[in-house]
């Protein structure tokens, strides 16, 4: 009877020790979880500023005050803490809300127009301006000179003038 009682108390002690070990292990393990890096606002906003919520047009996500945008920022924070990269997070937003959430449209299809058109227009504009300036300045130089000698400095630069001068000389 006594031996049986001692065996039982030993068993209870074992269980208690096991429970204690389990609680201790879980206590030790939990802080390790909590110590994981929590993304700062700056880290969240670094991605958020590259995104636009479709609800709040023309307001970048990092400064948008609406509830929808706050939720999006929290989602970015969660995904960052899960270890997702910036590219992965942006792709998640594109998949869920469409490419229009991106501040910079992806360089595909018709989106290329956004990147090519403005520089093309500037180049064409500059060319037109250059031509126009040339056209405006030339007649002034030509009309200012009444004699042959005064028109000479311009003549070598212009084939047409050179030919004209040659024709005139021949007629003389």
């Amino acid at each position, binding site marked *: 009877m006594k031996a049986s009682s001692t065996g039982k108390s030993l068993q209870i002690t074992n269980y208690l020790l096991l429970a204690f070990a389990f609680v201790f292990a879980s206590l030790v393990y939990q802080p390790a979880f909590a110590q994981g890096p929590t993304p700062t606002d700056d880290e969240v906003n670094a991605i958020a500023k590259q995104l636009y919520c479709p609800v709040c047009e023309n307001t970048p996500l990092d400064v948008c005050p609406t509830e929808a945008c706050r*939720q999006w920022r929290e989602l970015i924070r969660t995904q960052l803490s899960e270890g997702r990269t910036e590219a992965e997070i942006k792709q998640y937003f594109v998949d869920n809300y*469409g490419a229009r959430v991106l501040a910079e449209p992806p360089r595909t299809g018709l989106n290329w127009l956004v990147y090519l058109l403005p520089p093309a227009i500037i180049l*064409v504009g500059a060319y037109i301006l250059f*031509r126009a300036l040339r*056209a405006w300045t030339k007649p002034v130089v*030509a*009309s200012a000179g009444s004699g042959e000698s005064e028109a000479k400095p311009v003549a070598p630069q212009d084939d047409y003038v050179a030919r*004209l001068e040659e024709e*005139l000389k021949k007629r003389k």
Partner: protein
Amino acid sequence: MTETTNTAPESRATSAGKRGVPAWVQIIVWGLLIALLAIVFVGLRRAQQGTVQPGDKIPDFTLPLFSGYEYEGRSEVKLSDFRGKVVVLNFWASWCKPCEQEAAELQEAWQFYEPDGKVVFLGADYVDTEPEARVYLKKFGITFANGPDMGTKISQMFRIKGVPETYFIDQNGVLQYVKVGPFSSVDEIKSIIDGLLK
């Protein structure tokens, strides 16, 4: 001789004017200008169009559904699956306060029509995050099929202006009624549906 000399500068000026901008540059510039105007015109027209109008045939679309909010065990549904039924498509979001005003009414109306199987309620969650959406659905005890409007494709197709907006599509896939803003009562929802079931 004198005449020739006098007219030379004029002819040069005229020639320079003619040669000012080459034809190909002019064509490109005019082409770009026309394209730009066309884009602006299409954009303005789209903006002024408003939502899709009653009488419009609604193109088919696919709505993926949240786990726990499937339709008869299906994880995604197509509009074409519901030919012969009235479809009530509700756009909502968890961050939308006016949506909360009608959430309970929509659920009540769904419970009223569910047994007959002649009406389907679909919730399209617009620009939302799933955790918040789930909290919202649980809060209002919503049980009808609900899912995210992935890529905002469906809302763009309907050209919604905000949430909540509800579209009533008849048995042939034709839009019959658009409700912009929250419903004021269950009776309002029922009166629209009953009109379509007649």
